[in-house]
């Protein structure tokens, strides 16, 4: 079934926040932000800007009627800076003008006098200074200290993992509309309407019920609008509060890129110990997360790193340490994978390095240590329905790893300039918010007297196909045609206290809530039908294809007749369903529990060709076996797999965030930040779904799909690195992502480049030349 919104998208009819009809007196806002990464505000001079034509007002922290605080977990983030600024792009003042263009112009006339303070951009430096957010945490299993002694081989290393810009194509935006009695409606491009409601109420000093947040759809989110859509919504609410007019704010792309946080960069140290046969006995890792200037969701992101630091492997002795390090960069935030991918990158690096030391294929170590049924993870949860080996075996059967390895070895023997590399990337990703209380959702379902159905949930449609899934779930549960079902906008007056659409769990949570609401209405309808038709067993009544059946036989009643009769008999045709994921818990004092409803498994094999004289590379193929349980909608899910993979591949290769030492963001446009384009995608992409097995936690047996496929992308780093090793086996290449073509070249030819830049005659090229001749001879 196709995406429910797609028809409107393709006609250009879908409305995003700034496409909605504009009230005649709509005002426009622009954000003045900090020009330095750390400093004391001495004076904010808005006089000249305020005197410009068309400028209505300029607001700063002192104009906030309520509390100037928007921190979602830890209360350390102001909406508008007060006495200090902590990163370049931190909002300081809000200009409100008759047009967006005038508002932008006025920004240039605002003067900010600042006394600069020292800037820290490196997480290890911040950690050494004691600049950490919340508490550092450690997950432990077994006896790590005792285990090192029984290992045949122990290797250590360091990883530096870069962040990633979300590049939702619709930048951050919001419009606030004043309603009667000092109430406000906010149209926001947010993944978390309740976060917007809570924060804007706090900013304005109002109760939550005075703020209505409505979200039709997002032009992409990827985590970037989970928490960081909130400030822009609060700012327009503030302006609407003062001006009593509707106010809209759309961040231009470069401002969006400068002012918002990204995926967290990590710097990590690992130590891994194995037997000579490749069995991993011990693994220790220290993660230094670059959190940026405020907490945002960093502590939660770090928690997911802790949970995913051993990826798909069972390791009996483990110690995982992580700390959120406060730096003078924009507050880093949620991004598809939410800290999991960084943890997984480090264990894969450790395995790669161990394989080199043991002279063994990394595939052998990976396979030997894959999770099996009932294995315990470092956080105490035992894996149920473990499909790590199943997906690996299935992938091996379908794609024949040994044959690929052989072909690549042969290619590399016979080619000098180009080398091929291969990597296998297994994934195991836990599904549920790791803060157990967030795993709740509501749905409101109405059936109208013509038999049409309205479904509201707390979930956000951001392109991932949630609404398509919900429509299918509701229609299937009622036994009616899907055309009868409409999925409404997400609105805080219909669904209260919703969790963000995040953690891959949106369809699981909201789909299950919808099933509960539908179930309540169905139960009433069946009771009525049993009574009216004189049938004794209402449980034998089902609705199929809009017909009411009893014991599998037609009763003569249709859906239309059933609804009409229910209405005339004063049976309620509305219900609110509430779902809370059962059986999950986590004890943060002991760092043990059962935080995930289930895990998603999969295995991908990736092949690349690297031009070792130029550093450029092609991704030849990505082939995977992925576990979707019993998918609700395969077309939508495959779209998630392909899109998630593209983001993972981009994160590992092209997408490079550049900051200078003063904390200035240098890659602040799509001209300087390289995004995957159509040429970037693998030449061959094969996605096989594991046999369809019902997942008891998912609606109709489905498994979550949003985040896991991104992590297959990690494999491309190791595939490229393996190709580089085929060219220069003597070099220990860094675990430094993204592995851009520039970095490939610099690492392959560091000796040459060093000679060249120092004006020396190139001598170390001789070895390469000799090798080339040898190849030509053969």
């Amino acid at each position, binding site marked *: 079934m*196709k*995406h429910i*919104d*797609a*028809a*409107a*998208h*393709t*006609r*250009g*009819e*879908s*409305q*995003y926040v*700034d*496409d909605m*009809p504009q009230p005649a007196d709509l005002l426009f806002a622009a954000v003045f932000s900090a020009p330095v990464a750390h400093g004391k505000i001495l004076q904010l001079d808005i006089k000249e800007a305020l005197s410009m034509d068309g400028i209505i007002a300029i607001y700063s922290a002192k104009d906030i009627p309520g509390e100037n605080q928007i921190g979602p977990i830890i209360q350390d983030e102001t909406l508008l800076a007060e006495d200090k600024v902590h990163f370049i792009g931190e909002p300081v003042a809000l200009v409100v003008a008759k047009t967006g263009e005038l508002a932008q112009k006025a920004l240039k006339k605002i003067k900010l006098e600042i006394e600069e303070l020292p800037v820290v951009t490196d997480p290890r430096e911040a950690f050494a200074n004691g600049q950490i957010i919340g508490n550092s945490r450690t997950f432990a299993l077994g006896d790590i200290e005792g285990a090192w002694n029984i290992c045949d081989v122990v290797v250590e290393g360091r990883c530096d993992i870069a962040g990633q810009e*979300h*590049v*939702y*194509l*619709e*930048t951050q935006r919001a419009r606030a509309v004043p309603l009667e009695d000092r109430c406000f409606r906010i149209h926001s491009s947010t993944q978390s309407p309740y976060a917007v409601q809570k924060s804007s109420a706090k900013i304005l000093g109002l109760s939550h019920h005075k703020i209505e947040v409505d979200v039709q*759809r*997002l*032009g*992409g989110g*990827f985590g970037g609008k989970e928490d960081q859509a909130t400030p822009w919504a609060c700012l327009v609410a503030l302006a609407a509060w003062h001006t009593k007019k509707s106010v809209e704010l*759309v961040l*231009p*792309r470069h401002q969006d890129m400068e002012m918002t946080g990204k995926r967290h960069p990590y710097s990590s140290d690992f130590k891994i110990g194995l037997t000579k046969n490749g069995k991993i006995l011990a693994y220790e890792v220290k993660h230094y997360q670059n959190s940026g200037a405020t907490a945002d969701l960093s502590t939660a992101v770090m928690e997911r790193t802790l949970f995913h630091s051993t990826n798909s492997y069972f390791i009996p002795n483990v110690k995982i340490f992580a700390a959120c390090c406060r730096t003078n960069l924009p507050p880093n935030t949620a991004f598809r994978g939410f800290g999991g991918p960084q943890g997984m990158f480090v264990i894969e690096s450790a395995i790669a390095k161990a394989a080199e030391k043991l002279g063994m294929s990394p595939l052998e170590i990976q396979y030997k240590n894959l999770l099996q049924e009932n294995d315990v993870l470092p956080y105490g949860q035992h894996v149920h329905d473990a499909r790590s080996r199943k997906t690996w075996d299935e992938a091996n059967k379908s794609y024949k790893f040994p044959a690929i390895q052989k072909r690549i070895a042969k290619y590399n023997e016979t080619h000098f300039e180009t080398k091929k590399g291969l990597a296998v990337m297994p994934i195991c990703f836990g599904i549920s918010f790791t803060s157990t209380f967030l795993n709740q959702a509501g749905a409101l379902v109405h059936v109208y007297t013509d038999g049409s159905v309205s479904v509201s949930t707390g979930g956000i449609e*951001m*392109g*991932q*196909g949630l609404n398509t899934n919900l429509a299918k779930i509701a229609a299937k549960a009622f036994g009616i045609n899907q055309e009868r079902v409409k999925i409404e906008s997400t609105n805080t007056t219909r669904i209260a206290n919703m969790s963000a659409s995040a953690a891959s769990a949106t369809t699981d949570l909201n789909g299950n809530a919808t099933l509960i609401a539908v179930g309540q209405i169905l139960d009433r309808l069946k009771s009525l039908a049993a009574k009216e038709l004189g049938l004794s067993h209402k449980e034998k009544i089902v609705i199929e294809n809009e017909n009411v059946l009893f014991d599998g036989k037609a009763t003569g009643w249709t859906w239309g007749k059933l609804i009409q009769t229910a209405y005339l008999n004063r049976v309620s045709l509305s219900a609110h369903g509430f779902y809370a994921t059962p059986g999950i818990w986590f004890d943060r004092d002991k760092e043990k529990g059962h935080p995930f409803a289930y895990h998603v498994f999969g295995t991908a094999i990736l092949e690349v060709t690297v031009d070792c004289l130029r550093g450029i590379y092609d991704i030849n193929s990505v082939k995977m076996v992925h576990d979707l349980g019993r998918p609700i909608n395969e*077309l*939508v899910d*495959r*779209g998630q797999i*392909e*899109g998630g*993979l*593209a*983001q993972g591949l981009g994160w590992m290769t092209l997408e490079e965030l550049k900051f200078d030492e003063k904390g200035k963001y240098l890659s602040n*446009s*799509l*001209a300087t930040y390289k*995004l*995957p*384009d*159509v*040429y970037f*995608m693998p030449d061959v*992409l094969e996605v096989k779904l594991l046999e369809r097995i019902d997942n008891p936690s998912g609606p109709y047996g489905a498994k979550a799909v949003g985040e896991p496929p991104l992590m297959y992308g990690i494999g491309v780093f190791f595939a490229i690195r393996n190709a580089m090793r085929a060219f220069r086996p003597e070099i220990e290449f860094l675990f430094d992502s993204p592995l851009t073509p520039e970095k490939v070249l610099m690492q392959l030819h560091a000796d040459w480049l060093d000679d060249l830049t120092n004006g020396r005659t190139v001598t170390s090229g001789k070895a390469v030349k000799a090798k080339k001749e040898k190849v030509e001879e053969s």
Partner: protein
Amino acid sequence: MLCKIIKLNINGSTHETAIREYDVLLDVVRENLNLTGTKRGCDMGTCGCCNVLIDGRARLSCLTMAMECIGKKIVTIEGLKSPIVHPLQRAFAESGGSQCGFCTQGFIMTAKALLDENPDPKREEIEEAISGNMCRCTGYIKIVDAIENVAKLQKNGKGSN
């Protein structure tokens, strides 16, 4: 700066609108004419979300001066649907080539220009045509599939404008 009143031929009808000499077409179609199907993704010609057809060729409306469009035929996504849904629109919806939808119209306008000029493009030619359009959701494969499907349909005489 003073405004000028100009006439623009958009989607087959003439629109009279007041512009400033430095206004770009994107602002004029969105703000003056309320044709909001054309999206603003970057304002600097790097994403392709604002593509429209100008005299049949795909152009970035964020980098096109409105003044330059006088006397030219402009088609936006809103002009594609009448009288019936264009095969590209159907194909993008059916193939999964549209997720969040923000880039979709830009791809469709680019693809329309390609197919009008080259009704039977190779896959590589499709890739070349859309290489300036960014999509963050789909990974492009289903987009290329959609365009290829339309080309095939048109070749077999089943598509129509």
